[in-house]
């Protein structure tokens, strides 16, 4: 049965795409449609396989009880983001298709990897593919984003590798869940370096600094990918390493994580309050969301981690939604918050979806963002962190402030008419946005306590 792993589908798909690409070039037809539709088909197929059969244990990779859910929503988001990408423009090079599938594959492998080396490889797959995705349109803005992303990513990778080598030196094995004898000093040092290496991907302060710039510099769909799938993978890797691999690693991990999470939430929220550009605001908000998920992981117990996983799901969907929705308006040259009221003329559906997405990010019921926060607070309160919860309440006020300032700026102007034409492309995009919006309501069925 293990051959039915959705990851295999993706690998086979990539190979198939390469063959098709060669074949296409031979025929000199030059048409990319077939590649693009094939990519979509592969993603859909992988999604179908995933939800029907789930994942299976294979060497270096083992499934956990949440992995089917996480891989499922990663694939779901991948389908949404990729179809949006297609609806947006079809002129890009076919490399993007390969890279996209590889990135998704990497994210899925992160979720089920059970060894540091496989984890490293999976993360590298995401990173390498993301470089290409960020450099999507090869513009100067893209170059700047890619440059920052690559250099930070490279540094984080070497730190991660160094940390892994120390962990290996401390324990003698890199397999998660193996019994090990600990040489304490290199183990702790290695673990903290692993933490640093992984924190980059999940944008934890102070390792987040690339994120707003890269999010802003990239194409909207790529931003959606980075802020949802890629970040979710980074956070899941944290769960994998610190909760499942070294469950009782040491007391300092929990405290350290809480400090980092609080720093993330506070810093990102405060910076988000003063942004004028919508995309940058959303970028900072996405960082703050990661902080909330991280605080669940920090508890390092079952309720905290399951809350964190649901929270990751909730903000990944919402972030994908808002960045994709904003892409529609970005194309209509709406960059600053003060122009937000022109959005209505571009796409009403888009505005409503953006509205609901932001509500979910703020944590307003009945969206899954609310249930995510509910689970996080519940996990914190059942572990006795009352003061922490109160301080989170306070910081949530600031996030409410900037989210609602954005929503208020979307005040519909009755007399403004946009000259943007309503094309089929916009209709398809709106359909995708609606699908994601519905997920914000119906995703609640995946809540676990």
């Amino acid at each position, binding site marked *: 049965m293990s051959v039915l792993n959705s990851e295999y589908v993706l690998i086979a798909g990539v190979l198939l795409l390469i063959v098709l690409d060669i074949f296409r070039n031979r025929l000199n037809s030059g048409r990319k449609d077939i590649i693009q539709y094939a990519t979509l088909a592969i993603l859909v197929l992988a999604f179908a396989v995933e939800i029907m059969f789930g994942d299976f244990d294979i060497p270096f990779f083992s499934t956990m009880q949440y992995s089917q859910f996480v891989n499922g929503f990663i694939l779901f988001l991948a389908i949404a983001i990729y179809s949006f990408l297609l609806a947006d423009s079809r002129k890009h090079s076919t490399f993007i298709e390969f890279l996209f599938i590889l990135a998704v594959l990497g994210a899925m492998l992160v979720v089920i990897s059970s060894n540091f080396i496989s984890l490293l490889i999976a993360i590298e797959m995401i990173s390498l593919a993301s470089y290409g995705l960020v450099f999507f349109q090869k513009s100067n803005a893209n170059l700047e984003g890619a440059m920052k992303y690559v250099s930070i990513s490279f540094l984080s990778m070497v730190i991660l590798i160094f940390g892994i080598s120390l962990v290996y030196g401390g324990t003698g094995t890199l397999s998660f869940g193996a019994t090990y004898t600990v040489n304490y000093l290199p183990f702790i040092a290695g673990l*903290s370096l692993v933490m640093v290496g992984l924190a980059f991907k999940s944008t934890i302060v102070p390792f987040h600094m690339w994120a707003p710039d890269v999010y802003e510099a990239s194409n909207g769909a790529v931003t959606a990918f980075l802020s949802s799938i890629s970040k979710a993978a980074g956070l899941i890797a944290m769960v994998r390493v610190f909760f499942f691999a070294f469950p009782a690693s040491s007391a*300092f991990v929990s405290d350290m994580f809480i400090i980092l999470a609080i720093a993330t939430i506070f810093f990102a929220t405060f*910076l988000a309050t003063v942004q004028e550009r919508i995309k940058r605001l959303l970028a900072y908000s996405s960082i703050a969301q990661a902080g909330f998920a991280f605080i669940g992981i920090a508890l390092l117990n079952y309720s905290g981690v399951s809350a964190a996983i649901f929270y990751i799901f909730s903000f990944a969907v919402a972030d994908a939604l808002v960045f994709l929705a904003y892409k529609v308006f970005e194309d209509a040259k709406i960059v600053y918050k003060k122009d937000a009221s022109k959005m209505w003329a571009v796409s009403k559906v888009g505005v409503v979806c953006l509205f609901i997405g932001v509500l979910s990010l703020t944590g307003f019921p009945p969206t899954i963002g609310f249930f995510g926060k509910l689970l996080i607070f519940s996990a914190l309160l059942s572990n006795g962190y009352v003061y922490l919860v109160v301080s989170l309440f306070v910081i949530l006020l600031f996030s409410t402030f900037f989210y609602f300032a954005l929503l208020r700026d979307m005040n519909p102007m009755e007399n403004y008419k946009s000259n943007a034409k309503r094309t089929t492309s916009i209709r398809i995009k709106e359909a995708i946005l609606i699908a994601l919006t519905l997920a914000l309501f119906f995703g609640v069925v995946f809540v676990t306590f």
Partner: protein
Amino acid sequence: MLDLILLPMLAAFLLIVVIGEKLARSYAIAIAGCAISLGMATYLFVANFNSTTVDSFNWMSISGSNFLLSLTGTNLSLGFSVLVSFISLMVLVFSVFYMRGEPQVRYYSQMSIFIFSMLGLVLSGSTLLFYIFWELVGVSSYLLIGFWYKKETAAAAGKKALIMTRIGDMAFLAAIIVLFLSTGTFSISSTIQAIPYLPSSIVLLTGALILIAAMSKSAQFPFYTWLPDAMEGPTPVSALLHSATMVAAGAYLLVVTVPLMSAAGLGPVIISIAMITAFIAIMLALHEKQIKRILAYSTIESLAFMFIAVGTLNAGGAMFYLFSHAVFKSLLFLVSGVLTTLFGVYDIYLLRARKLTGSWLMWPAFIGLASLAGLPPFMSMFAHVALAANFNLYENLAFLGIDFFTALFSFRLFFVVFNKGRGARLESEMADAFPIILLSAIAVAGGALAFYFNSIIQTTLSFGPFSLLSVVASVAGAYIAYALFYQNRSTSILKYFVGAASRLAEHGYDSIIKAVGDAVVRLGVMVSELDDRLSRAFELGADYSLALSADSRPIQTGSANSYIIAIIIGMIAVMAVAAAFV
């Protein structure tokens, strides 16, 4: 009994909702309502004589305790309601003459509401209902006093009256609450019966609170200043409110709660307050030139008499004086109303120039003022005697002086207005002549009632040496008034004496009250600035944190190198924390 009090309310409802300003003779409805009420009250009084009837209604029940509202018909309450509806009827009839050309519906509906409230108050058998009507009386008097709202002074007077009386209302409410929680009942009779079993602190507290309520309603010192100002209202309003009804409600409250007052030992306090009030009222009345304000001060003084009677635990005397005062004071107000409408002036010295002596109004005025002075053989003389039934020697002596000065200022009014010039002929018509004549007749002959009053409430008429002496003092006062004001002898000594006292009492005291009011407002302004600052503090907090955020934006320099350094710093920090844990 409920229908009895509801009739005026029904009239008011009809006037406001159904009729509006369309009907020219809308007074007919109000008069009809009041007249039927009078008829019913008389019928009930006669039919249920010496028996007690109770109408009771459960207002609401809160977890077992019932809020009973009840109307109780006793000889006293029904008798008082006859008086109230009678005086109201007289005043309403007079209003047909006086209020011609004024907004009819507003006036008659407000009057009807007032009559409804007053009748309800008189008949209330539960403290709660008593309080309800007590407040309604206050509120409708506010509306009536401020009837000519275009006049700034009238509007201010209404406001002052309501605020001053509301101080007492709040005290009364507190007293009711305390009594209810100590006795578990709102019924007045049960409460009175329970008094001996209450702790003395509760008795003293409630007694004091009720006394404050009565003082504010009856315009006793230190609350009296609203009453003279209330003369800004139409004269029929003054005739109704400040004779038989509103201000008398305070005295009535004390009459009802005499057992409480005696248990609390508040009698001497009441007497001294009332004496002070009477003294101040006399001074001010001697000083005053406006006819209505003189009458207002005399009302304050008369109310003080009733308080003194209650202070000596002589409820019957107070009640009888209340009845007699109702008659002659409304008579006096109606007379002044006729004079002021005809001539448009309130100043007694300006009225003197009209040469009124010999006109038909002189006789009712004389009857009223002689009653005020307690001269025989008018009804008021008997009331004075009844009043003094329980006096001890010192009180009697003090009262002689009061009698003297009362006669002095009332006859000052008479002799100034009805002076040597004669010859004015006054027109009269049914609407003003009928009430005045009827009231005069009662004021003259009502003394006979004194002998029957005992069946309404325990009253003793004991003619003794002091009865005689007080008549002598009154006559002396009247004569000196004649000498000073009719014959225009020198008044400088009196002026000097009265002027000093009145300056002290009027300006000094009024300014204190004003200062208290201003202080509250100024405190309000201060607190409101504080509140603004508090409100701004929240905004400032938000602004500062936004500014802080804006200042921290340069942390994101945009240069990859600094991002790398941030990662290194973060890494070192993480490792330092880890090292600290190891």
